[in-house]
């Protein structure tokens, strides 16, 4: 369960404060897959970072029950000079796994990501698709209650997309996702509930299609 209490988040800019969230209090619907929509720069990724606990509101609190993944996306989370294997090991270690568990997860990640020999090459030599595969495979090695995804399933080839969808589907019986995407079909397919971000406000729609309609209306205006 995720509950926001008077959450305000802004960025300082030369032209004054730019609000991402302005005094937002709400409870996220629980046990639903949630899609987050909004125009560019409306703070979708920032919202994911707030939920993931790696950015902090200027005012207010966010209460989260249950385990929540890191925001899976293309940026961040890896050290370019280290190999994919070492990056994956790092993640396992900070989650407190012992060395046996680490090696078990590493095997899984290697297998799932299909990186092959690239797994032992520095991540900076990876293509975007390979990075996404590493990031996605790493998160699949853990059992979270909520997965935060920042357009991550949009990359990778068709086959990997199918595979990750299947893996998520398997997790989805126990876990839920919160997802940012500009791909409406994907959101409608994967999510039940929609959150539309606009000028510092969050609108919750119980039906993802209604959120998409609101987003489309905002686009047209």
């Amino acid at each position, binding site marked *: 369960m995720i509950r926001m209490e008077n959450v305000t988040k802004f960025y300082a800019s030369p032209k004054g404060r730019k609000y991402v969230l302005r005094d937002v209090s709400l409870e996220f619907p629980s046990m639903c897959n949630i899609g987050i929509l909004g125009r560019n720069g409306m703070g979708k990724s920032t919202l994911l970072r707030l939920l993931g606990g790696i950015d902090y509101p200027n005012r207010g609190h966010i209460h989260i029950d249950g385990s929540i993944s*890191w925001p899976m996306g293309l940026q961040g*989370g890896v050290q*370019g000079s*280290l190999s994919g294997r*070492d990056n994956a090991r*790092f993640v396992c270690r*900070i989650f407190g796994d012992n060395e046996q568990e680490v090696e078990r997860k590493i095997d899984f990640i290697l297998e799932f990501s299909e990186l092959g020999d690239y797994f032992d090459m520095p991540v900076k030599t990876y293509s975007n698709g390979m990075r996404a595969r590493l990031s996605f495979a790493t998160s699949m090695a853990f059992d979270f209650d909520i997965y935060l995804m920042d357009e991550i399933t949009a990359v990778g080839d068709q086959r990997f997309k199918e595979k990750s969808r299947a893996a998520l589907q398997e997790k989805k019986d126990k876990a839920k996702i919160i997802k940012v995407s500009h791909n409406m079909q994907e959101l409608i397919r994967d999510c039940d509930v929609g959150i539309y971000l606009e000028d510092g406000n969050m609108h919750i729609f119980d039906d993802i299609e209604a959120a998409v309609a609101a987003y489309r209306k905002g686009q047209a205006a």
Partner: protein
Amino acid sequence: MARSPFEIQKAVVFALFVRELKTRFGKYRMGYVWALLEPMAHVIVLALIWSAMGRTEFSGIPLALFLATGIVPYLFFQKTATQCMNAIESNRGLFNYRQVRPVDPVLARIILESIVYFASYLVLLFIAGWFLGYDVRIHDLLGLIMINALLFLLTFGIGLTLSVYGTLYPEVMKLVPMLVFRPMYFISGILFPLSVVPTEYHHWLLWNPLLHVVELNHVYYFRGFETGNVSLLFVALFALGSATFGLLSYRGNWVRMVST
């Protein structure tokens, strides 16, 4: 799997430590040897300069030993402080995991540098004693341990302070190495001991805590080392003060260090 904050931090610092090991030493063949070569290069160059000028000892202490026992602690301070200052920026991507807090890479780097410091100290002395035939016996081991424990605390305080302000104000990262570290190399008692400076200038030089640290390293290492008015208390107070200031600065600013 509820872990206590201490358990989480322990796991994170360990993971970062391994990561630092890999990036520091993994790139080159014999990466660990390079850690030793740096202080050795300083010792050799300075020893050559001094012997060209006809110096062979300071208050009865052979030149090479005098230089080694001062340069190694000084370089530990300077390198660790610089490493801490850059720790946040070079680990930016890893703050994507909420377990990782800004102080963790700073701690990992301090631990790594301390191990490198200790190891290079021992190896250099071993080389000097075994191969070069110097008398490397330590006059006051407890004193030496004490001054280096204080040096560790001082380095932690300054390193943490620099990591906070270096991250918030990038100018600090440019200016501190140039305006502070470089001049300090010349006035911290590693090139020449305080005793060769005329006494009327001592009270200026003695504001520098690193001079006290280096001189006291010599005092505890060698019997009968001549020094000036150096004070263990001054080092202790400075170390405590900087650690307090560093922790306060961190406490007040850590959210700003990671949020965008």
